[in-house]
């Protein structure tokens, strides 16, 4: 069935002027899956997408769409649909003409073209828009038209290249929902490239975090959030970003505890790694207010509060820096002295080689 193909990348490589833009990427996207490639600008994700669509030729490696190796096929023969960053809806054509464009270019007869356009318009709720000119559409309509224009050619896989990065934050939310809707109703395989971790988290079945040409971690949003495997991933995912604290590991590795600048020993689970951790990571949402007499509470002063509306981020003194803590609005005040505690189930150890392990609470399952 169209739209439900899988994509496989094996050992994909590409260098420009001696720099490795893509450095051996292996990835498998399941049929009907929404997979995001997430990374900062310059990580190679655009190059990767360019190779998958066929606009750039790889130096090495294979691209397999729906079981066929497509390395030698021209872009239009690969049965992929690419939605560009600015949608590129033809402003001088009507919506109907926009949708028919690709089909006309492929030499499809008029009768069949009209049938397909009508079908996709119904699925994406564009029927009312068909006669309108491309120049008169708002952002949300443009996105639907751009996607419909691609879907009408019945691609095996839908590729989107940072389609929302130029849009206002408020418009992005509704576009996200629409895209998920489209995917759910058509069971379309989607590969989505972005640098916005909130977007990737919100929409994806799985996320591939990419940096410096390599995929650092592949997993569900929850996996990547709770169990980042490298420092880069830990710092990249989550807003506000993870706090990194100097720490000291004490005691027996199978039954140890960790000490930080403010805290007494916090018991942690078995630590199956060598050497001392360089940092302790804890997300602002895993730092909580506690009663003064809680066993592992630390007393500290609130230096500054950031009001983001639904929640407040309190910055408390911690060693020679600040620790960010998420609170409900007005739960604490600037200058106030509070007791805080770190959730032992949500600690991360950043090791010397920048890998990350989660020790979990004592008695936790083997990782």
């Amino acid at each position, binding site marked *: 069935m169209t739209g439900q193909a899988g994509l496989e990348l094996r050992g994909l490589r590409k260098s420009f002027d001696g720099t490795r833009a893509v450095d051996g990427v292996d990835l498998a996207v399941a049929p009907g899956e929404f997979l995001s490639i997430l990374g900062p600008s310059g990580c190679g994700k655009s190059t990767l997408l360019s190779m998958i669509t066929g606009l750039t030729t790889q130096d090495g490696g294979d691209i397999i769409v729906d079981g066929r190796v497509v390395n030698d096929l021209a872009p239009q023969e690969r049965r992929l649909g690419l939605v560009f960053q600015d949608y590129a809806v033809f402003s001088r054509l009507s919506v109907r003409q926009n949708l028919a464009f690709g089909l006309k270019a492929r030499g499809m007869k008029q009768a069949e073209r009209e049938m397909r356009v009508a079908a996709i318009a119904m699925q994406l709720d564009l029927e009312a828009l068909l006669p309108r000119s491309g120049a008169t559409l708002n952002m949300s309509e443009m996105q639907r038209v751009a996607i419909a224009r691609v879907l009408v050619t019945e691609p095996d896989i839908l590729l989107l290249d940072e389609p929302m990065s130029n849009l206002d934050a408020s418009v992005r939310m509704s576009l996200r929902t629409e895209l998920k809707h489209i995917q759910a109703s058509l069971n379309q395989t989607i590969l989505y490239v972005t640098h*916005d971790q909130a977007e990737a*988290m919100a929409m994806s079945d799985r996320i591939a975090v990419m940096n410096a040409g390599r995929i650092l971690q592949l997993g569900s949003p929850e996996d990547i959030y709770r169990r980042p495997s490298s420092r880069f991933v830990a710092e990249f995912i989550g807003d506000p970003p993870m706090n990194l604290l100097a720490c000291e590991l004490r005691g027996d590795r199978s039954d140890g505890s960790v000490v930080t600048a403010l805290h007494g020993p916090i018991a942690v689970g078995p630590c199956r790694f060598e050497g001392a951790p360089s940092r302790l990571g804890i997300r602002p949402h895993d730092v909580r207010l506690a009663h003064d007499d809680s066993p592992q509470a630390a007393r500290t002063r609130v230096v500054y509060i950031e009001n983001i509306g639904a929640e407040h981020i309190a910055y408390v003194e911690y060693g020679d820096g600040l620790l960010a803590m998420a609170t409900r609005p007005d739960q604490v005040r600037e200058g106030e002295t509070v007791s805080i505690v770190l959730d032992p189930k949500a600690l991360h150890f950043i090791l010397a080689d920048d890998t990350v392990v989660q020790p979990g609470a004592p008695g936790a399952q083997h990782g």
Partner: protein
Amino acid sequence: MDRLTIRNLSKTFPGNVRALDDVSFSVAKGEFFSVLGPTNAGKSTLLKLIAGLIGVDAGRVLIDDADMTQAEPRLRRVSLLFQNIALFPTLSGFDNIAYPLRLAGVDEAAIRVRVAEVAATVNVGHLLGRLPRTYSGGEQQRVAISRALAHRSRLLMLDEPLTNLDARLRIGLRRQFRSLHRDSGQTIVYVTHDQVEAMSLSDRILIFNEGRVEQIGTPREVYHSPATRFVAEFIGTPPMNMIDCVPSADSRMLTIAGSNLSVQAGSFAALPDRVAVGIRPEDVAVSRHAGDATSLPGSVVWIERLGSRNVLDFRIGSHAARAVVPVDHPVDTTGPAWFGLPAARQHMLDRVTDRFVQRQE
């Protein structure tokens, strides 16, 4: 500068494009004042008018009570950081930052000290010998920021300085802006379309739409007491839910439009016929059981798992809305779901004027 006052500023571009329509506000010394609105709302035009790069059609610009409306840019002594950075391409990073100081006639030794100072605050000291075209996006941004800061001016204006950057870089630079402001006490006017940025950085926010002022207030005020529908839907991630409904005759109950579901209203004065109840996603009380008179049955369509919290896309009748719940919340896409709109958290919008009705205390 003690005060910037803008009075009734209007500007129309050829082709009848009304960029600014009777805009008035004032900024106090040391304040971090954000101008927040969608792209192309006229925010950049506002900054250029204040700086004197474009002429006004009507209205006045007063800096410290002196009328500067017709004054040349260099007499106004304000600093402006443009959206597209605009570093001089033929000058090194150092010379770019030194430019305003050289124009002001500062001697070379003092220039060297000052440039090193500002460059250190945004961590670009090591780049200064190179040309702008060798910089990455983030580096260009920071050098441009240094240039804007180099010559201490009475007003620093920043036009969407973080918009073109990666999400992660934005968060880091946001922090630096904040400490910059706190340490220097500089008066800042900051233009952005990102409401999280505006909320987290500002003392006060001006919300701007299609050339008009929607509301001016502290982050708390615009969040908890939005004046218009636009403000309510623009601030907050996810934005406020607005559900059309019809009030009962005594304004105590609300019937959800297009259904026979009713919910208890908050305490408002007599309500107009056409209203919409506004409730922020984090105020929606989600549960598997029916609650009190403010609870409505519905179904969850999709759950967005953001790591620190979940966002539920749900439906009540034919209305779509969102709720924010903790990560381990029991309600899911199958099974019963009830959504409460607590009376104390309701906002009431008059659908005719698109403005919010005052709460009755």
